[in-house]
């Protein structure tokens, strides 16, 4: 027979009632020994140096990549007519900004595409979340609909763009609809999975504590599925832009996709690159906004492990 603890009750009681303080002590700075201070300083110095090295290498990478592209085309080793040229791309962007594009001012094209993408993103993710939670909660519905959803998911959905071009004409809704079908499935599958993966213990606990079905959904199922849903939103906005651009390729009067389409048809390779560059910038801004939203909504999650590479 083993003896677990030899601490008498009186001593136990008089001790700190929290024998296991949290790792993230927010309040009250502990008195640090000089050695610790020195160590902490050295550590932050090392971290700073490493950050600087990484930024430096990133700049170097960009310089080598763009520089070799520029150089080889300048020396006419490869024909800039086919592969474009960084300086040409910058020039094209500058002309678009100062003189506007063939389709009108540049900001208008960006705004049109973003409007389509945003609308498609909002509608698509809303539908995805609603259907994901519904099918995740109601087994019968999931079993009945699963073959249809699988079949719909198997279709290369960008081709629906041509269908929507017929149904909606040149209007904004056609492009948004293409974005919706791209976004919907990604969000739907994540929301569905998120609902299915809810910790059974948490559900049992909530039921014992007296939660009814509605509370169970709003207070346990949805928060639990939220990290899955938000993860899918990261990819979704990129897909919404793809949807909007593809929609524009099938026929539009404005938008970055149409701009790229026009550039392609007039053999303006630099114009195609400039359009791509703009789309990438917009997608990155959207991604940043979604990350900020995620951090606000899931503030209960442990903070990201330092050293994790955010790709």
């Amino acid at each position, binding site marked *: *027979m*083993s*003896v*677990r*603890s*030899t*601490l*008498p*009750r009186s001593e*136990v009681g008089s001790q700190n*009632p*929290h*024998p*296991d*303080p*949290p*790792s*993230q002590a927010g309040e009250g700075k502990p008195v640090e020994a000089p050695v610790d201070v020195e160590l902490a300083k050295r550590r932050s110095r090392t971290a700073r140096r490493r950050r600087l090295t990484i930024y430096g290498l990133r700049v170097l990478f960009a310089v080598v990549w763009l520089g070799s592209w520029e150089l080889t085309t300048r020396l006419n080793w490869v024909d800039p007519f086919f592969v474009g040229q960084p300086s040409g791309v910058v020039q094209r962007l500058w002309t678009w900004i100062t003189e506007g594009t063939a389709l009108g001012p540049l900001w208008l094209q960006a705004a049109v595409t973003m409007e389509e993408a945003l609308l498609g993103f909002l509608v698509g993710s809303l539908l995805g979340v609603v259907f994901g939670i519904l099918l995740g909660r109601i087994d019968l519905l999931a079993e009945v609909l699963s073959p249809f959803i699988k079949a719909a998911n198997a279709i290369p959905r960008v081709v629906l763009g041509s269908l929507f071009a017929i149904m909606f004409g040149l209007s904004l809704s056609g492009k948004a609809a293409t974005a919706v079908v791209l976004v919907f499935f990604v969000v739907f599958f994540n929301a569905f999975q998120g609902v299915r993966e809810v*910790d059974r*213990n*948490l559900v*049992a*606990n*909530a*039921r*014992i*504590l*007296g*939660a*009814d079905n509605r*509370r169970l959904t709003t*207070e*346990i199922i949805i*928060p*639990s599925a*939220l990290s899955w849903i938000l993860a899918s939103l990261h990819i979704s906005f990129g897909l919404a832009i793809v949807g909007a651009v593809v929609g524009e390729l099938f026929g539009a009067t404005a938008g970055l996709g149409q701009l790229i389409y026009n550039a392609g048809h007039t053999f303006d390779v630099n114009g195609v690159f400039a359009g791509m560059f703009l789309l990438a910038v917009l997608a990155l801004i959207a991604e940043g906004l979604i990350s900020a939203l995620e951090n606000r909504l*899931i*503030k*209960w*999650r*442990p903070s990201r492990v330092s050293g994790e590479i955010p790709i």
Partner: protein
Amino acid sequence: MAGPAIELRGVTKRFATPKGGIYTALRDLTLEVGPGEFCAVVGPTGCGKSTTLALISGLELASAGEIRVEGRPVRGIADGVGYVFQSDAVFPWKTVLENVAAGPRYHGMSSAQARARARDWISRVGLAGFEDRYPHQLSGGMRKRVGLAQSLINGPRILLMDEPFSALDVQTRTLMENELLSLWSSTSASVVFVTHDLEEAIALADRVVLLTAGPGTVKGTYTVDLPRPRNVAEIRFQPRFAQIYEAIWSQLRDEVLVSYERQKHAAAV
């Protein structure tokens, strides 16, 4: 004296296995827990200890036999039952305060009132000052305290505990066991405490129920006539404690061996 708080008569529980077979977790289990009694259930791995709790709580329904809680047959989750889970079951997206206030809110109490009561319970389990923390910011022992407060705030007349302290380190565990006893003594709740640890069972309980290796059924019950209030850390030095321990262990040992042989056999197949 009123009837038993919990009554299981000839209870059998079978589960369908994923391969289409049937697994019998409990067979013909008969057990009674009196009002205000602290009853510990021990048994080897896989003897259906947790299943017993799930049946009493109404989370699972029995395949055969009858279960009554406070005289009423169990048909679903009953009111007045608290459940402390083996693994963490506190809600990670709620703060300590919101976690503890959840039960009263689910029972229709206003948010402000529920919070006020929750604050009281948080300080009772020694977590005052941690109301706004999220569970991931707490240690395992503190999360267990949150779990305790979360179930006790509903004032359960039946408290079911499924190896609640098995994941804690030894010192924290002894501390928590003592706190559980002092919290329990201020209530009149009947407790069913499932554990694989015989020492813990004897130190805490009025009565120890020994289950056989699965399918579980009662092999014997043993009254623990040690005086209360008890100090879990010291009680094991008493000669009476050792006597009871030996009496139960001589029976438990056989069941543990059976269970172990079966696991070896299952692993070999």
